[in-house]
Structures are given as structure tokens and as C-alpha cells.
């Protein structure tokens, strides 16, 4: 087991996949960087540093820098996948799904179904997402709910280096399109990463904490906030299950329902605004399928129904906080 960051885990996993499978290719803006400049290729390695060294090893035919044309990037990835490749397409910010939305929701997601089941379109779209770096309303959003809503897409959100590797390998070896959400504030997060062809199957949640009194389901960066809250509560004798679903589509319903059956209390933490969010998705699941288990109203801790603001103070108020999670847990315990 090596200790590494999520950034490096993604880089290494892609590198190994490209060595193993010549059909794995990459497309994106500045993923090599420096194309057509005096400094030359590989000046950058992606603005997130996740593709460092790849163009050097695999060449510009497989690590393709593109113009600023997101629809063409995703569309080309779709076409290459229909033609037998396994493209990894990078959306520098998940906020840009609106620029290429059709290729995601009407093309990649639907080919297999509408073409009668004979087609595979194994595109992995990397979407860098999330608030917390004062990047403003158009560079901070967490749109996994919008893509979870689309049948035909799978959606992964790794929160540890090991899962980043395991889920990426799973995405690259599966035959379905995967929306791979990487939180920009988590790239530097370190952890142990298994050697070799580590795979994490989709639809299997990770139990980040076990506590037994309250169930917290959290997504992406919110998992670490939930862990923080759970640790603080543990000191006060309150035990929380913290569930990191790892993929929202497919979703490990069982892990969530099992935990709620035991705890009777649910808090869902989601970095998106509340409406038609993963938070509502989980509350609906639990209230429909574990109704009798619930001892208190399930709670949502989400961003407010507003765009992401720029300034430090405002953005801090916008992002769900560990304190808000703690308060929600307490509300479920103090109920009735």
C-alpha cells in the first residue's frame, strides 16, 4: 500500500490503464497543455495536475488536447467509444455540463437502450466539481444530482485515494458510461492506495464511521464534514453511522436502509442546493422503504436555494458545515 493523494491516485490509475489497454485514450482542454506553444507539450499536465506525464508516455494521439469545445469533446468521446475505444473525457469544471449537456443526456446515456442493446458506449467523463475555493457561481457547482437523474449514466464520487483508484478502474473496465465527479478540494487528500488492479464495484457504499445511533449519508466532500461531525458527537457519546455511497447511480439502497433500520434516524448531507437533489433522493428512498424504522423526521443538510457566491464569508455560509450536520443530528435525537 502506498500513501498518495487523490490527485496522484487518479493519475497513476489512468497511467496503468493506458499501459494495460491501448484503447484507453484521453480528451480534454489542456490535459497535456502547451500544444502549439514554444514551451511545447506537457508543459502543464492538466490544470488539476491529474494528467501529468501522460502525454510524454503515451503521445498526443492518445492524450488529446482539444480546443475549447466541450460538446465536441464529449461528442468525440461518444463516437470513439462507439468505435471501440474507452475514452476518458475531462470537463475542467462540472459546471460546464450545460455546454455539452446533450451529448451526456441524449447521446451517451441513451445509445445502448435506443439502439436495441447491441451498442456499448464506455465513456468516462471526469467532472471536477465543488465549492470552497471562491471560484464563484459558474465554477463551483456539484451537478451529480442532474446526471443521477438520467437513466443510462452511472455516477461515481470518490472521496478517498483508494476509492479514486478503485472506482476509476471499475469505470475503465466496465462497459457503461460513467460520470466521474472529482471534488477540487479533495485532490490533495492523502490516504493508502492498494497496489495492482484495485477495483471498487459500483453500488457498494463505504461505511466511513459506525456508530449505531444516527445514520448520516453524505456525498463527496461532505463525507469528511460528516466524519468531523460524527467524531465530535462521538465524544459526547452519540454514535453515527457515516455512509459514503461512493456511487449515486447505481445506489447502494441496502446499506442505507439497513443502517436506518438500526438507527431510526437519518441525516443526509449534500453540497447541492436542496431541490431535486441527492438529499431529496435519499429522503424519498428511506421514507418510502423504511417508513416504520424512522423514529424522527429525516433531515437534509444542503446548500441553500441560491447560486454559489464568491466572497469568503458568503461561500462559507453557503457550503453545508460540520456544525450544521451536528445540529441536524441533534434535531433527530431530540425529536418527540
Amino acid at each position: 500500500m502506498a500513501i498518495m493523494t487523490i490527485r496522484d491516485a487518479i493519475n497513476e490509475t489512468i497511467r496503468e490503464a493506458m499501459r494495460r489497454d491501448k484503447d484507453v485514450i484521453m480528451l480534454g482542454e489542456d490535459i497535456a497543455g502547451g500544444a502549439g506553444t514554444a514551451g511545447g507539450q506537457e508543459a502543464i499536465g492538466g490544470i488539476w495536475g491529474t494528467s501529468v506525464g501522460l502525454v510524454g508516455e503515451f503521445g498526443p494521439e492518445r492524450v488529446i488536447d482539444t480546443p475549447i469545445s466541450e460538446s465536441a469533446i464529449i461528442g468525440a468521446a461518444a463516437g470513439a467509444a462507439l468505435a471501440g475505444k474507452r475514452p476518458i473525457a475531462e470537463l475542467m469544471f462540472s459546471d460546464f455540463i450545460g455546454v455539452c449537456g446533450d451529448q451526456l443526456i441524449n447521446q451517451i446515456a441513451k445509445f445502448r437502450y435506443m439502439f436495441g442493446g447491441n451498442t456499448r458506449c464506455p465513456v468516462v467523463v471526469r467532472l471536477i466539481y465543488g465549492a470552497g475555493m471562491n471560484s464563484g457561481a459558474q465554477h463551483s457547482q456539484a451537478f451529480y444530482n442532474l446526471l443521477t437523474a438520467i437513466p443510462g449514466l452511472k455516477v461515481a464520487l470518490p472521496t478517498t485515494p483508494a476509492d479514486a483508484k478503485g472506482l476509476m478502474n471499475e469505470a475503465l473496465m466496465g462497459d457503461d458510461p460513467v460520470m466521474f465527479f472529482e471534488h477540487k478540494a479533495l485532490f490533495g487528500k492523502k490516504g493508502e492506495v492498494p497496489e495492482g488492479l484495485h477495483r471498487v464495484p459500483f453500488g457498494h457504499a463505504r461505511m466511513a464511521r459506525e456508530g449505531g445511533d444516527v445514520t448520516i449519508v453524505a456525498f463527496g466532500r461532505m463525507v469528511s464534514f460528516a466524519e468531523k461531525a460524527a467524531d465530535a458527537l462521538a465524544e459526547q457519546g452519540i454514535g453515527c453511522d457515516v455512509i459514503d455511497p461512493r456511487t449515486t447511480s447505481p445506489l447502494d439502497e441496502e446499506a442505507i436502509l439497513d443502517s436506518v433500520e438500526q438507527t431510526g434516524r437519518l441525516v443526509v448531507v449534500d453540497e447541492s442546493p436542496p431541490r431535486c437533489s441527492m438529499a431529496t433522493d435519499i429522503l424519498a428512498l428511506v421514507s418510502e422503504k423504511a417508513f416504520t424504522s424512522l423514529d424522527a423526521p429525516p433531515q437534509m443538510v444542503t446548500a441553500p436555494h441560491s447560486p454559489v457566491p464568491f466572497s469568503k464569508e458568503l461561500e462559507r455560509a453557503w457550503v453545508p458545515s460540520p456544525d450544521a450536520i451536528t445540529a441536524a443530528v441533534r434535531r433527530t435525537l431530540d425529536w418527540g
Partner: protein
Amino acid sequence: MQLSRDALLHAYRQMATIRQFEERLHEEIKTGQIPGFTHLYCGQEAAAVGVCEHLDNEDMIVSTHRGHGHCIAKGCDVTGMMKEIFGKRDGLCKGRGGSMHIADTTIGMLGANGIVGAGAPQAVGAAIAAKLDGNGKVAIAFSGDGACNQGTTFEAMNLAVVVGVPAIFVFENNHYSEHTGVGYAVGTSRDIASRAEAFGMKAWRANGCDFFDTYKVMGELLDYVRKEGKPAAIELDTERFYGHFEGDPQRYRAKGEVERLRETRDALKIYRDRVGEFGPVDMAELDAIDSETAAMIDAAVSEAQNAEPCDPAHVTEDVYVAY
């Protein structure tokens, strides 16, 4: 340009098949047996066939909402298509796709597409794959004159030039996008091909109602693309004989326009008029093909009519390979 008898007859058969497929659909739709809305390719046969007669199963095409002609020209099973359009369970797409979503990736037909402009970047991706595979294959995006105003089409052309791949943009200019004239919607100073040129691509122009012209110019284009490994474009001047979709009252047409087009711009007539220049073919042979095709379409329609309907239990199948 001289063509072998086989080539000449095959091209005619393909065009006749498309024509009769579409003319027959036009009739069948009136009976109410065909669900949804259908865009007929009638009038544009020379375009699809003039392009696709150059291709084999490993060359790839991406099509449009008006895709029947491309599908047939690329070799899709005609009975399977008919069943699909009738919405039957063993249709080419199991009745889940319909007229606008016919595909057969095993023969390089990557899909008709209901979203105008969506296909062009996909062809670029397929061309990227072809380049990596180094097999000399090409990928073709069919687009209409309307689709050439969609941002994706432009992005695709630029990307193809940047990455230097054998993607070919075939613009079928049938002078209308739905009910709007090309002279209005394409604000360009010259023509559609000149847009491709502005993206740094070589572009050709041909008569898309004349198989021989389309075939010849497309041949030159393909020589260039296969030799240089670069993208290229071609604008085909062609005609649509029916409405935008079946049911369109076509009030935007000039009086007598369709009759005139059927007289002067009919791909099958033009083929018969000119075939002598390209090789020895008897009109009787063409007549025979017409009859064989009619019988084949008849059979396809009755097979489709009598085919099993879809089973509602299958509604959620094949959303994923594994979920």
C-alpha cells in the same frame, strides 16, 4: 469514370430500395400503423448512395433524424428497419428506437439521431478511433443544411482539423430545415462548403441528385482524406420530395415545386439518363431491380405488420450493460 456492371447495378438497387422503402412508408403511415413521426428521405437517394458505395463495413457513418436512406445505403437490414419503424420487438433496435434511432454498429452505422447537430462530433471521435487503429478507415457525418447552423457542427469541424483525422462532413443541402429556407437560416455569404473551408478544411461540391456526380466527387474527396489523413467536407445539392415529417402540409413550397423536382431532380431518372456514360447497363435490368425491390419491400412490410409487438416487460432492459 467507368464503373463495373456490378457496381452500377448495386448502386441502382440501393437507390431503388431507399426510394421504395420511403414511398411505401408514406402509404403505410396513412393507415395509422406506424407510431411517432417519420422523416422521409425520398429525393436524396443519390446522396446517401453516392457516398456509401465507397465504404465498407469498417468505415463508419453517423446519421440524422432523416436516417432511413443512410441506413439502407450503409447496409442495414431492410426488414429489421421496417420492423423497427413499425415498433416491433424484433425490429433492428427491438422497437425501442424507432425511425429516428436506427443503428447497427456492427456494420459501421453508428446511429440515426433525433438531435440536430449531435452526430458531427461523434464522427470526429470515430475518426480518432480509425486513426489510432491505423486501418485506413474513415468516419462520415451526414448533416443537413439546418444542422450546419448548430454549434456542435462547427466545433466538430474545427476539432477534426486540429486533431487531423479522417472525418468527413457530408452536408446534404435540401434547401429546407423544417419549414425554413436555407437562404434564410444559413446566413453565409457563399455556401455551406465555404464554411468548412473557413475551418481549414478542403471542401467539395456535388449534385446530390446525381449518383454519378456525387460518387465521382466523393471518390476524389476520399482519395484526399485517405492519403492525407485529414478531414474534408462536401456539400451535396439535393431535394426532399415529401414534407419535413409526414403530415407536414408544406405550405412553404412554391406551387408545383414538388412536381417540378420529381420531373427534373429525380435521382433514379437521372441515373437512368446518365448510366450509359459509365458502363453498359440495360434499362430492362433496372426494371428488374425495381420489381425485385418492390417484392422485397412488400415482404418487409408484411413481415413487419405480422411481427410480434413489443413486450411491456422489456421496457427497462438494456439501459446498462450491467447495473
